[in-house]
């Protein structure tokens, strides 16, 4: 472990250090890499400001002892992430404060016992077990919410882009464009928090790393050259049709399945003429239709929950590709 840690020469500038850290973390969760780079830069910049008079190379040489060389830092973050994932995302396990506290108390991990292997459950148990998965309801709620957020994101991007591009003819278009690009980054973080809370997909908690040593012109240039800026906008544009589709799917299937399940109640309890009309013909005139209707409704409800969870997973994967691609 220690021999190959120092195989590479120590970096002499902060961007080099961060680049080595990024390389050492290659293949890890992109959201975790973003957090690790952010933490490291905060520490390095603070240390540099604290030790005025020393060169960047001297400060980094000192930091390798206290904060850790890039390879050591990478190893620490990998280990911590494994521990947290184990505590937070074990299959079928609820996120309890105790589990989170256990993860917080055991950053190095090896003392935590591995989670007991999930017992093989039957197909039926797995089908109905979807009601116990908190991510199901998170995804369902996300589908309903996405109509509002999707409309907002779409409007924001279309308005911001057309306003700033058309005003570029005048000089005031430039600050408006920059403000708009900055706002897209903030919104991307916000959407990341929503997705992580509701869909359980790890998203960055810190803004993307930017090289602070360059001038502001170079940094603005980097923002335009950064594919993530454009992919984020693409994601926001996609959110309108997706949000409408998600909302429609969720409300249609939920109301259909609930109506099928509770129609007999309306017929029995409230003396309200309930029926199942297809093309104006009531097909539910016979009494035996009602148990079938309840069963079909229940199956449809569980199917809807499965569909919601699946859409949540797909959407989480898509958001990860478009919002945190490195």
């Amino acid at each position, binding site marked *: 472990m220690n021999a190959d840690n120092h195989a590479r020469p120590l970096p002499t500038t902060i961007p080099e250090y961060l680049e080595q850290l990024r390389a050492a973390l290659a293949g890890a969760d992109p959201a975790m890499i973003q957090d690790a780079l*952010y933490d490291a*830069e905060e520490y390095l910049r603070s240390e540099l400001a604290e030790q005025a008079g020393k060169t960047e190379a001297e400060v980094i040489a000192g930091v390798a002892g206290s904060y850790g060389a890039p390879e050591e830092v990478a190893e620490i973050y990998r280990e911590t992430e494994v521990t947290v994932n184990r505590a937070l995302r074990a299959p079928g396990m609820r996120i309890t*404060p105790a589990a*989170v506290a256990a993860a917080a*108390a055991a950053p190095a991990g090896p*003392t935590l016992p591995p989670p007991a292997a999930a017992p093989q459950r039957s197909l039926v148990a797995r089908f109905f077990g979807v009601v116990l998965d908190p991510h199901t309801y998170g995804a369902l709620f996300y589908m309903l919410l996405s109509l509002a957020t999707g409309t907002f994101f779409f409007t924001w991007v279309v308005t911001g882009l057309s306003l700033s591009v058309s005003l570029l003819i005048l000089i005031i278009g430039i600050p408006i464009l920059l403000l708009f690009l900055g706002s897209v980054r903030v919104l991307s973080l916000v959407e990341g928090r929503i997705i992580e809370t509701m869909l359980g997909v790890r998203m960055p908690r810190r803004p993307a790393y*930017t090289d602070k040593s360059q001038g502001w012109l170079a940094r603005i240039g980097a923002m335009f050259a950064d594919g993530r800026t454009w992919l984020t906008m693409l994601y926001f544009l996609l959110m309108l049709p997706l949000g409408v589709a998600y909302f429609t799917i969720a409300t249609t299937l939920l109301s259909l399945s609930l109506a099928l399940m509770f129609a007999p109640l309306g017929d029995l309890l409230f003396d309200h003429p309930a029926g199942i009309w297809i093309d104006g013909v009531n097909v539910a005139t016979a009494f035996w239709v009602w148990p079938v209707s309840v069963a079909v409704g229940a199956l449809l409800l569980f199917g809807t929950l499965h569909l919601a969870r699946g859409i949540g997973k797909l959407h989480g994967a898509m958001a990860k590709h478009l919002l945190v691609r490195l």
Partner: protein
Amino acid sequence: MSDLDAQLRKFQKELSSGTVSLALLAVLAKASEPLYGYLIAKELERVGEGVLSGKQSALYPVLRNLEGAGLLESHVEPSVSGPPRRYYRINDDGRAALRQWIAAWDATRNSLQYVLEGIH
């Protein structure tokens, strides 16, 4: 030789896994104002010996986990020297947890001391 070293490192890592959270909570409980990661690391470095003098990059994920567990609160402030800093403050849940953890630590330390007595 290197075998002994590796075992010592493994022991230190296991020892630090619980104590680092305790130390972080304690530092924040004593602080009169919110602190950001670098200041907390330096505070530990000033007093830290043994396992607490480990690599300071390990502190950041622990801070984030403690916040996730609801024991700390944080806010972001811009800084002149680098990226915006995340300032951490202990909340009431954190203080309650800290009291319990201190009791557990005291009990552990006392019994360890008793067990280790007389070995030189």
